């Protein structure tokens, strides 16, 4: 019984880690720029395929290291280009902006499918990652700890960045009031590109880790992660990093425990959680009184 609890918790937190990697970028992007970025799942997918392709050519731990760089760089570059060439010209037209990200979110997985095919591509894990760890009788795949560690590292890194650096100061102020930041002589658009690139890097990392977690990747992976990431972002309040972390853990755990009770209940329970919180909370998505 205890080992089941531990296994479910570890699985839930592993999933939560993936949600956090995707949702933290989404949340910062919405918090700073009011952009609902439906292309974020595509960043995940591109990171995943970039990593897989590199690891397919270079074997072992070294290949995995290169794959990590490819995932992060691929996600960041795609995100920065998206902000510069698709989002930026449309800041005065928010609806068109959302539609453009939806389009990109559909086009990129289709492009990936055209190049790599619709069938899943299998990840072969290096030996040290393929095993399980025995935790109080529960055999937990090592990869889940890697996921959780990556999410915690991202949370810590982002918090430091926001609290200790000038760029972080600009982002925190920009989440509160973009106009006033510009009126103080600060080029907020540079912060926009930076936050997009950072969110894209985290999404690319999620693409790699999702592949390791599932043992394979397919073109639509990012899009399915994105749905849960959006739920997390709404629950955790847009623009709040801590809120996003807590909401990720909540969604991952609720989903796993509900799935244990009855298969398929997992996804439904997340939707119920979202509906309940939205109905009971008298605040808008950024946490201001509605």
């Amino acid at each position, binding site marked *: 019984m205890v080992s089941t609890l531990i296994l479910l918790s570890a699985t839930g937190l592993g999933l939560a880690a993936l949600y956090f990697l995707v949702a933290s970028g989404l949340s910062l992007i919405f918090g700073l720029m009011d952009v609902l970025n439906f292309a974020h799942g595509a960043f995940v997918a591109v990171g995943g395929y970039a990593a897989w392709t590199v690891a397919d050519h270079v074997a072992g731990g070294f290949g995995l290291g290169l794959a990590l760089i490819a995932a992060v760089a691929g996600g960041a570059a795609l995100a920065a280009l998206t902000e510069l060439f698709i989002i930026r010209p449309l800041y005065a037209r928010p609806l068109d902006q959302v539609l453009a990200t939806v389009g990109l979110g559909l086009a990129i997985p289709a492009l990936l499918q055209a190049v790599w095919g619709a069938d899943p591509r299998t990840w072969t894990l290096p030996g040290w990652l393929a095993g399980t760890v025995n935790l109080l009788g529960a055999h937990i795949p090592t990869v889940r700890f890697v996921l959780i560690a990556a999410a915690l590292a991202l949370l810590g890194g982002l918090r430091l960045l926001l609290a200790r650096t000038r760029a972080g*100061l600009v982002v*925190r*102020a920009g989440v*509160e009031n973009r106009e006033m930041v510009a009126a103080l002589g600060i080029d907020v658009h540079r912060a926009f590109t930076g936050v997009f690139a950072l969110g894209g890097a985290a999404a690319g990392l999620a693409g790699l880790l999702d592949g390791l977690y599932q043992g394979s990747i397919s073109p639509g992976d990012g899009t399915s992660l994105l749905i849960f990431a959006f739920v997390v972002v709404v629950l955790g309040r847009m623009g709040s990093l801590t809120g996003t972390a807590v909401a990720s853990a909540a969604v991952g755990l609720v989903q796993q425990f509900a799935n244990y009770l009855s298969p398929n209940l997992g996804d439904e329970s997340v939707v119920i959680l979202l509906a309940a919180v939205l109905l009971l909370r008298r605040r808008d998505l950024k946490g201001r009184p509605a």
Partner: protein
Amino acid sequence: MTYQSSVDQVVADRAPTATEPILRVSGLTVTLGGSAILHGVTFDVAATGVTALLGRNGVGKTTTVKSVLGLHPIGGVVSFAGTDLSTLPTHRIARLGIGYVPEDRAVFAGLTVEENLRLAEPARAAPRYDFVYELFPVLRERARQPAGTLSGGEQQMLALGRVLLGPARLLLIDEPTKGLSPKYAGQVALALGRIAQQVPILLVEQNLAVVRRMARDAVVLDMGRVVHTGDARDLLADPSLTNRLLGVSAAPVHSTTAKPAPAAAPAADLEAGAW
């Protein structure tokens, strides 16, 4: 040299002369959400002292100020010391030395007082913390406190201190005493008086006691148009004019025994209590 004598020196250097205006707004039109807010607003802001932008609620005062800063798409010409602002993005306009203190103060509530100030430090000049802390000692005392926990008056001081860190050449200050207790309104007005000796100010202000005390020129807007420009004291000395243009009676209070009209009561409090 003490602060006051240095200010006196500055004032002497800038004694009323017919210099070029620092800001020229001509034919400014703004349309927001499909409705025209400003219909060809034209006025100048003098290179010294305070120019008051007056008018009833909703006539376009805040829109005018925000348009100067490039926060709204505009028609017409806004020129600052010879530079055309109409095509520049807001951050570039600010870097020319235009400081903005908005109506709602817009301090960053989740940032500490210190962080609010640090954010506003100029990129190329040494921040003038001595000047700001001398003007508003409370900002040093509350450096580590989140700005959202300050009182309204302290937030106003932070919003003012923020734009004074850099080498400001013009300040746009929107309703600085609005909603403040008489004590804070007095302190803020006093500080404004000292700031105005160093930097020209375009001041939106409903409190006519403050306007009377500080403004040399007045520009009155109505329905998105300029309906009066001229000497501020002359305007406020003419009850029929102020009543028609501003909807208030602002007869000058000649002695403390004179009974002010009800609409001017807060102003009278300010004058009696704060100075």
